């Protein structure tokens, strides 16, 4: 069975562990030392590199989870379910990093830890939707039904996230849009120098690699969990 090959940690995964460690260390160096200090905001702006990267990975993870859920509903195969749960958990952690770092940045720049801005609310709602997803899964014992309900809820949730954004955006946003065109009412906007752009892109790559590594670990854990359940079922019969 496919599960057998997962008993030992794959070589490439170990290699990826080391690779992501090196990349994130380098990104930390770039963000803290190499990139120039932003003239208006000062050192606190450096958190932006990890803030944006974490948000990116979190969003990609949630989208991946929704796509995997959709595939599961069309073609019920356990691997998509294992993937979706792993992606949701990884997404939750990265989105939390995104929200927390954003909050730290906002304290000196917006003069508040938190404001009810569309982006902030949408990120929080997304976090809550996927927490609810995990709670739903916990409440259902039959594995097949758990996977099916989880997939449906992930899709319902991802349908409501853009609507949340739109419903709150009717009032203007103060969140800066550094990549692409900024809104005139944004506070804390800045122009990036080429070294800043490089640092940002590097952080994106580093966080993406790290996210992939963590996701792989979590998928492996998911399969091992399945294996344990299977063995227990064989041994005691329930």
């Amino acid at each position, binding site marked *: 069975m496919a599960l057998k090959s997962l008993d030992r940690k794959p070589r490439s995964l170990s290699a990826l562990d080391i690779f992501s460690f090196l990349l994130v260390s380098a990104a930390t160096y770039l963000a803290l030392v190499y990139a120039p200090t932003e003239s208006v905001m000062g050192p606190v702006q450096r958190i932006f590199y990890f803030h944006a990267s974490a948000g990116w990975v979190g969003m990609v993870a949630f989208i991946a989870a929704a796509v995997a859920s959709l595939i599961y509903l069309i073609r019920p195969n356990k691997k998509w379910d294992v993937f979706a749960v792993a992606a949701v958990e990884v997404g939750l952690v990265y989105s939390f990093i995104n929200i927390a770092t954003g909050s730290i940045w906002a304290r000196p720049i917006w003069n508040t830890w938190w404001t009810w801005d569309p982006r902030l609310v949408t990120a929080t709602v997304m976090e809550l939707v996927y927490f*609810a997803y995990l709670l739903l899964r916990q409440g259902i014992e039959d594995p097949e*039904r758990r996977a099916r309900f989880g997939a449906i809820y992930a899709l319902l*949730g991802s349908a*409501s996230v853009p*609507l949340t954004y739109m419903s709150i955006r*009717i009032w203007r946003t103060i969140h800066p849009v550094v990549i692409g065109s900024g809104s005139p009412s944004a506070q804390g906007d800045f122009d990036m120098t080429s070294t800043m752009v490089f640092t940002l892109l590097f952080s994106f790559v580093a966080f993406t690699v790290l996210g992939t590594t963590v996701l792989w670990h979590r998928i492996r854990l998911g399969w091992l969990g399945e294996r344990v359940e299977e063995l227990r079922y064989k041994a005691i019969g329930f």
Partner: protein
Amino acid sequence: MVNYFSALFSILRKDLAVEWRSRQLLTAMLVFSVLIILIFNFALELDARLRAEVSAGVLWATFAFAGTLGLNRSMAIEKEHSSLDGLLLAPVDRSAIYFGKTTANTVFILVVELFTLPIYAVLYNVNLFTPGFLIVIILGSWAYSAIGTLLAAMAAQARNRELLLPVLLFPVLIPVLVAAVRASTGILDGLEMVYIWPSLNIIIAYGLIMPVLGYMFFDLIVKD
């Protein structure tokens, strides 16, 4: 098609008849609504100045909380005597069951609103009975029931169903709640329609998307 609608109306009639005989649920929802308004009164110190701004918010929060009672009940009642199995054996498209239940839940919440709104209007001396406000109430209630019924069907099959429904429902409900509060506040403040349409559009979009998802997924939720 005729068969589909007659199935839908049978479900609706059954739910309304069951409720009419006992009136348990509506009484509970109604008492609960009045209690929530009472609590808001003291929690927010609803004085004349604040009242105008927060009325819509208080009302929608009240309906959202009271509505979960109805949603929980509407699916739990089918699970209790395995009557859901009976329903599923019926040779009709299962989404007819979903739409029947959604309509019944909309009716329940509208009845609660029908009693709660005059009470609120009298208690706080605000005029809530404008056509625009009532349209928002009806559209919002439909959108609420459309998603609520679907999630209740899911929660009813979980171990901790009463606990689970609000947790599942509220994050997904936020866009429609935000839009409904915005639209209602706008109407109560007498804003022009230009400012109200964007929120109204969100409610309408939500009220169309969720039933479509319900149509697609309900069968997957109730099978086996």
